[in-house]
């Protein structure tokens, strides 16, 4: 092992150090000062993100598509940096709003933030893992932190249920995935994705079985049908900031790992995985949307909507032959970060006011908190894919990829699904704007939430109105990953 290679791990090291420090500091922080730990968590994301950006600059200076270190187990390229930044954004924003959510609900404030940072470390590793073992470990790292966070409110039975359910589903799918990985190892004699690809040889039933089983693990992380059943219960039961985190952080990292595994490890010529994913994409978006239609609980609705969005993103893998596919996937996950986090933040504001997550109970929010309601309108329209929002440009990108790859049927199905989704997203706006408030009077919004909402809102609008910088970035990332 070359110690100099450690410099490529600076973002992970910074975040790990911060998490450990936070745990220690927690012991010596009096209860009334615990909020400082949250600010520390938010602040620690900044050097991590900055170092990731600097590493990207180093890569460009080396004119290298990416560096592989530790016997090819770990790859740092523009693709990985992109996902690291998305993951860090999620950690920072969720920590910010957790500052307002957890005090008063749990005395163990320090642990929330430490776990968030640890989950963040796992996400950073997932984006770079290019070896089956590291992949498995990093996914488990994220999962274990997430199980704890989902069940963190131990006096709340729903939170408990969420934690346990998440754990059981996660454990089972990880087992299946590990078995699939072991098959891949058995077939090729290597755990490195870079070796598996060339050695896979002629595809037999064993290869398909291995790929299928591996998909179970990734499918669990990104809420792909049929591995999605945990999503609504966990989303509903987990503390709302954690739900927000689960919906964007592990999902994005899951896609990163899935993309790297398939594009590097499983040659298209041997296994026609785009076709398989086209079917799964169609299934995922349709099931998610149809079930979202009948939800009255905002968090459950967003859970099914997140399944549907996983379906849209999977379109990119189905349309892999188009250069637009990967770019679309990357762009979409950034857009999704902003709009979905924003939606959950509004859900927090609204639930604080009404003590309920039921959509009709949010009636008249536009009269009580006009800016929050306006932000929610932007998020809902963005999730539907109405311009000029980031969600629209993301869908535009993905539809374009599908059309370019000749998958008109899939694009048409996605269109139909988007129309269906309008109904339930606008259902929220209907409550917010069309229905009168049950109790009048302005609604206070805590500062941390306000800041989180503002970032999500500006991100959703800016990435939609002027996507050019992101487009250039994702184009570079795509070139580097797929050559």
């Amino acid at each position: 092992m070359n110690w100099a290679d450690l410099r490529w791990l600076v973002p992970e090291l910074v975040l790990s150090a911060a998490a450990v420090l936070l745990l220690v500091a927690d012991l010596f922080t009096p209860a009334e000062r615990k909020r400082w730990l949250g600010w520390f968590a938010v602040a620690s994301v900044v050097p991590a993100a900055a170092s990731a950006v600097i590493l990207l600059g180093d890569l460009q200076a080396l004119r290298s598509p990416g560096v592989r270190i530790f016997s090819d187990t770990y790859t740092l390229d523009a693709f990985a940096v992109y996902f690291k930044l998305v993951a860090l954004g999620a950690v920072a924003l969720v920590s910010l709003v957790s500052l307002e959510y957890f005090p008063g609900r749990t005395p163990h404030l320090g642990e929330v933030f430490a776990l968030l940072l640890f989950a963040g470390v796992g996400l950073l590793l997932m984006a770079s893992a290019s070896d089956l073992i590291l992949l498995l470990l990093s996914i488990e790292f994220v999962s274990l932190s997430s199980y704890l966070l989902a069940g963190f409110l131990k006096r709340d039975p729903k939170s408990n249920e969420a934690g346990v359910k998440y754990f059981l589903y996660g454990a089972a799918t990880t087992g299946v995935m590990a078995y699939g990985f072991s098959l891949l190892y058995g077939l090729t004699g290597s755990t490195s994705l870079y070796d598996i690809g060339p050695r896979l040889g002629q595809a037999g039933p064993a290869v398909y079985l291995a790929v299928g089983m591996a998909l179970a693990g990734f499918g669990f992380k990104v809420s792909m049908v049929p591995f999605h059943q945990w999503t609504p219960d966990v989303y509903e039961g987990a503390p709302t900031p954690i739900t927000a985190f689960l919906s964007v952080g592990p999902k994005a990292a899951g896609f990163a790992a899935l993309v790297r595994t398939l594009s590097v490890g499983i040659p298209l010529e041997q296994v026609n995985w785009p076709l398989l994913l086209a079917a799964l994409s169609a299934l995922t978006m349709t099931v998610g949307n149809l079930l979202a239609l009948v939800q009255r609980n905002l968090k459950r609705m967003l859970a099914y909507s997140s399944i549907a969005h996983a379906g849209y993103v999977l379109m990119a893998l189905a349309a892999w032959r188009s250069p637009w596919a990967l770019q679309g996937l990357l762009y979409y996950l950034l857009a999704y970060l902003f709009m979905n986090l924003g939606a959950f933040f509004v859900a927090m504001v609204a639930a604080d006011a009404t003590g309920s997550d039921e959509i009709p109970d949010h009636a008249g929010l536009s009269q009580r908190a006009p800016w929050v309601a306006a932000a929610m309108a932007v998020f809902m329209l963005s999730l539907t894919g109405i311009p000029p929002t980031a969600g629209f440009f993301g869908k535009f990108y993905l539809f374009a990829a599908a059309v370019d790859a000749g998958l008109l049927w899939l694009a048409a199905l996605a269109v139909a699904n988007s129309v269906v989704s309008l109904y339930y997203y606008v259902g929220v706006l209907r409550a917010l704007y069309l229905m009168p408030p049950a109790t009048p009077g302005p609604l206070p919004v805590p500062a941390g939430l306000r800041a989180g909402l503002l970032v999500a809102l500006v991100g959703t609008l800016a990435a939609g109105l002027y996507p050019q910088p992101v487009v250039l970035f994702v184009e570079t990332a795509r070139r580097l990953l797929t050559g």
Partner: protein
Amino acid sequence: MPILTITLFLPLLGALVVLFLPREDADRIRRVTLGFALATFVASLLILPRFEYGRREIQLIEQAAWIPAVGIQYKVGVDGLSLVLVLLTTLLTVLSVLYSFREHHRVKEYNLLFLLLETGMLGVFFALDFFLFYVFWELTLVPMYFLIGIWGGPRREYAAIKFFLYTLVGSLAMLLGILLLYFHLPAGQRTFDVLEILRQRPLAGTGLLAQLAFWGFFLSFAIKVPMWPFHTWLPDAHVEAPTAGSVILAAILLKLGTYGFVRFSLPLFPEVFHQHALLVAGLAVVGVIYGALVAMAQTDLKKLVAYSSVNHMGYVMLAVAAAAYAYGRPELADAAATALNGATMEMLAHGIITGALFLVVGVIYDDRTHTRGVEDFGGLWAVLPKYGAVSITAMFASLGLPGLMGFVAEFLIFVGSFSIIPVFTALAALGVVITAAFFLWTIQRIFLGPTNPRWAHLPDLDRREMWTLVPLVVLMVVFGVYPKPLLDIINLTSSQLVAMLR
């Protein structure tokens, strides 16, 4: 001076200003909104002296890079077709805002949405990049959803979501069509530039794909127009929308559909459109007759006007289908140009006349009688002489009385279409008879006969109402008697299109 860009974004700027005004100060919000609407109207008038009347191509182009990485740019321009529709939009927005001074419920949001809507509509007419076009196309949906949903009638929520869902289906189908066009440009030259795509017609000769793209665009525009049988959202939306919303919906939003047919479907897919022209003409004729018959059966005045829109938009589509059918037959080029002139003229005429009709309904319903039942009135002209004169003029204009604007448009449509698709045209002429019948019958029931004592003491039009209605009536008469200046502008585009379709 980038006059198009200024015209386009003035309302948006106004919306931003309104956003930061205190919501309690309703009066200031109204005046600021009116100020911006007027400024936009003036800006759009300033396009006229800059416009070169000898040029048939799109002109006054303003462009800037936007998302060059995927061939998307900000590009706007006007030709005869878009210019007149832009003027219609800015004028009717002013009048709608003025009329809406009486709205007291959530004034800030109302005015803000109106300004947002205006930018959306103007953008559709100005845009010369398909991506930009699509953004504005969708931008019109959101404000209208809220306008219907918050300030509408008793069934507003249903009508609002129905409107949104219907139009979104069409829009997304069109988006796929746009993407098909884009990806059939040669790699390396891919662009969403409308003029470039029109020049290259990337899907020409691709068979099935051209068909799919054509129907994608068709669905979007046909729902918007709306053509029979895609019209079912219209009666709900029109009836439930607040008066000014109905005005904009009828006068401008429906035109987005016919504009799309003329601007895109005709020159992009001439072969495919030609193939299906008779089917489209058939649907148009059904719309004409069905709309007229259903309007006749209405007792709700607002519904009656709504269905008369289905009827009138049918005439426009008849002319467009005729022009499409004339593709490849140079001997019919003149007739096609006449039909297209008629189609555009009818878009304007319907905008002005039906806009006025919805205002007429609003004036009587919103704060005088709170009923729109045709049977509930009688002898109203004697009580309200000014109101009666305005209403009856608008209704006469709508039924196509010579000397008023509607007649010019319908005359051109029938003359042009008859040489190309005589049977359909003859059938459509039947619609004129029915339209005349139901409007005359309506006039008789509302304005003539014995005065209903319930309404004996209604006040006549006040000054603000005069200001909203009289300009429209003047335009109906002026362009009914002397349509030449308008036709000269419109004809630029029609002859250009026909030259492309030869």
